[in-house]
């Protein structure tokens, strides 16, 4: 296919400030093979002129690693939450048809900073809440780490790839302004730390946290989280497992009180 004069048309949901009104703006970028949404946005800032030919402020967005490991560039691309760096234009066109408009919008479950940048502090705060760490005595070299079975490591490793990008939170219907649900990713994190031989020694702290307001009970099993997770973490299985654990713990706590 000859690609001369072909353009990539993007429509971006923009917002100047956290409290200002959003508006849409379209840009045309010359098509090149192997581009992704980040490289398209990079072209925009090299020549920030919209389709009306008006010079505008370049689109503001977050990105960092460009390899889908840092999670910074998460946004809605044609309505789906994903990392802009891994959203290859050619792949999108395979599904929608060449040259079809690509719509970019910020995630909706987080406060907007400017244009496509959002504030995901809440997720990091919630990691504190569920005590997502292994409480070691200190970072000095005390001894060898505990032995850990290969079969356990295989699935725990998958959870530990979570980059706190927010895709699962975005897709979850129960994460909304009206609920305090901590979201799917953090429930899986609790399972991770409750599995590690040292982390396990403090599992009750995390289970308690998981049963507070906004905890695991807020899950409504829509199971979107699993479908959109870029790291393919089987979040729904981990939530089900933690449902069992929290229930067992609640019963044990009641019986031994």
């Amino acid at each position, binding site marked *: 296919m000859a690609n001369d004069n072909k353009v990539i048309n993007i429509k971006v949901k923009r917002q100047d400030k956290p409290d200002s009104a959003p508006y849409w703006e379209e840009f045309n970028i010359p098509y090149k093979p192997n581009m992704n949404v980040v490289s398209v946005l990079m072209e925009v800032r090299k020549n920030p002129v919209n389709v009306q030919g008006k010079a505008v402020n370049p689109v503001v967005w977050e990105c960092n690693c460009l390899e889908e490991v*840092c999670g910074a560039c998460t946004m809605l691309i044609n309505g789906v939450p994903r990392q802009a760096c891994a959203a290859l234009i050619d792949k999108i066109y395979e599904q929608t048809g060449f040259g079809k408009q690509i719509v970019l919008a910020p995630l909706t479950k987080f406060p907007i900073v400017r244009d496509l940048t959002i504030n995901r502090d809440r997720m990091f705060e919630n990691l504190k809440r569920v005590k997502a760490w292994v409480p070691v005595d200190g970072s000095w070299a005390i001894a060898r780490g505990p032995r850990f079975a290969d079969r356990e490591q295989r699935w725990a490793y998958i959870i530990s790839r979570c980059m706190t990008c927010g895709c699962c939170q975005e897709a979850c219907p129960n994460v909304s302004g009206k609920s305090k649900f901590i979201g799917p990713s953090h429930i899986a994190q609790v399972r991770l730390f409750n599995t590690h031989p*040292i982390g396990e020694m403090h599992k009750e702290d995390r289970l308690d946290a998981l049963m507070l307001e906004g905890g695991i009970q807020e899950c409504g099993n829509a199971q979107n989280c699993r479908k959109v997770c870029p790291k393919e973490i089987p979040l729904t299985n981990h939530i089900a497992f933690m449902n069992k654990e929290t229930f067992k713990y609640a019963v044990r706590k009641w019986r031994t009180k």
Partner: protein
Amino acid sequence: MSKQKIIVVGGGLAGLMATMRIAEKGMPVDLLSLVPVKRSHSVCAQGGINAALDTKGETDSTWEHFDDTIYGGDFLANQPPVKRMCEAAPGIIYTMDRMGVMFTRTAEGLLDLRNFGGQKNKRTAFAGATTGAQLEYCCDEQVRKHEAAGLVTKYEGWEFLSAVVDDEGLCRGCIAQNLTTMEIRIFKGDAVILATGGGGMIYAKSTTSTICTATAAGSIFQQGAYLANMEFIQIHPTAMLGDDKTRLMSESARGEGGRVWTYKDGKPWYFLEEMYPAYGNLVPRDIASRAIHKVCVDMGLGIDGKNQVYLDLSHLPTDFLNRRLGGIMEIYEKFHGDDPRKVAMKIFPGIHYFMGGIHVDENHQTCIPGLFAAGECDYMYHGANRLGANSLLSALYSGTVCGPAALKYAKGLSKTAEDADEKAFTAELKKQEAFDEKIKKMNGTENPYVLHQELGETMRANVGIVRNNKDLTANDQAIREIKERWEKINMVDGHGFSNQTIFFARDLKNMIEVAHAITVGALRRDESRGSHYKPDFPDRNDEKFLKTSKSRWTPDGPEIEWEEVDISLIKPRKRVYNVAKEVSASGK
């Protein structure tokens, strides 16, 4: 004395480890980072982390690790700190293991080890092919624990602008700017640790993240700190070319049995195995990159006539690949389209790591007392070429050295930053505010992003794998021109809130200064050593250049000074990889 505090700039492995070590001793830390620390560039490291755990029956030793590192670095690193790093390595791995890093395991539940370039023994612990991310997440979690306890205050979304140096010449804190509100403010601290990473973005296309601009290093360079060995830039042999960046294909691919080849006379030619029979595909990165360059550029044997060769894993079992290299399998499949389990990957060398960096002493202190540097932004551990899987180690280890050293320094102060003269702070703040105003008002003709691409292009063309003095002189000139053109930047974003272009323009200024130091360093070093290769001077010249190059900033361009290298432990010997490494004579 008033309450003391230490500032750590950078939330990658080095910064987080330093923070942990300081917080553990009860000293509060202000942790500044451009991004939420969990998104720092350390997450991009893939292959693993070296430590002579000696669990594979190969009688590995920390001395052997030390010797491999010094030999791999072509004897340019000061030896005692490297030795201490290699000795500390097993303890660091075990600590990370205790903290919950999901390292890949052996059948009996121990840490598995794999091969890596430039070393004969299995010495690289790993967590699939996302080891950097796993280590970073683990340190992030530990620091979050200290944050929850109130010892660490995170300032995420802040950029370091400059150090505050008082009349006595001591660093008393720094000036930083908020990426969103654009507020510029003073951070007072009894010591400042820069853990700000490398500067791959100077080359525009590299395997590094977009935040790796070396802007902090560039800034303190202009404040009087030295940069050292800047001419040593690691070019990773196996990366994949993309429109926005070159993506790393971990050396672990070769460590696990990947073979590099291209067609010669219509048949696959495994040129690394032929050229370097002793190490084969596991030669260090500088050697492999030069070999690929030779095959593609000099011999014209690149795949499809381009500067690329095959990295082949397709002969290995799928389950084995998924388990041990899953992360990079996904990246290649996602960004390239082909399945590397079935077809050979097309790879080419890409800018990867800065061996050089801010000049520091053995305590990681710069020539400005109270200002420290750790991690990729320092120059300490890798000499003229870094061995794969030594960067995660040096990042963590330098944090364990730098944190306590900064703490000790702060405790020894007679006057704290809080009690220091206000004058130095306000003067530096005013200076930075004025510079910010200047950038905001720039209305010339140059788009900063386009100018950055040009900087990257000239750097890639002239200060890459093969260097010569004619190109380097031309590059010196090109950079002087870019420096002038920077003054004519147009501030394309007229917005006063969350204005990324202001930051980019400032970073670009600092990138240009560091690029200049790289260029002049390369120009002055008339020899070939490690990653620095000049065909006009094909041999290592220990007599003249077994020296650290120290770059000092002047308005007219960098001045180079030379400093002796501490070679007290291992006598330099010829570095070759076609035959097995000689056993080092001294030590043990």
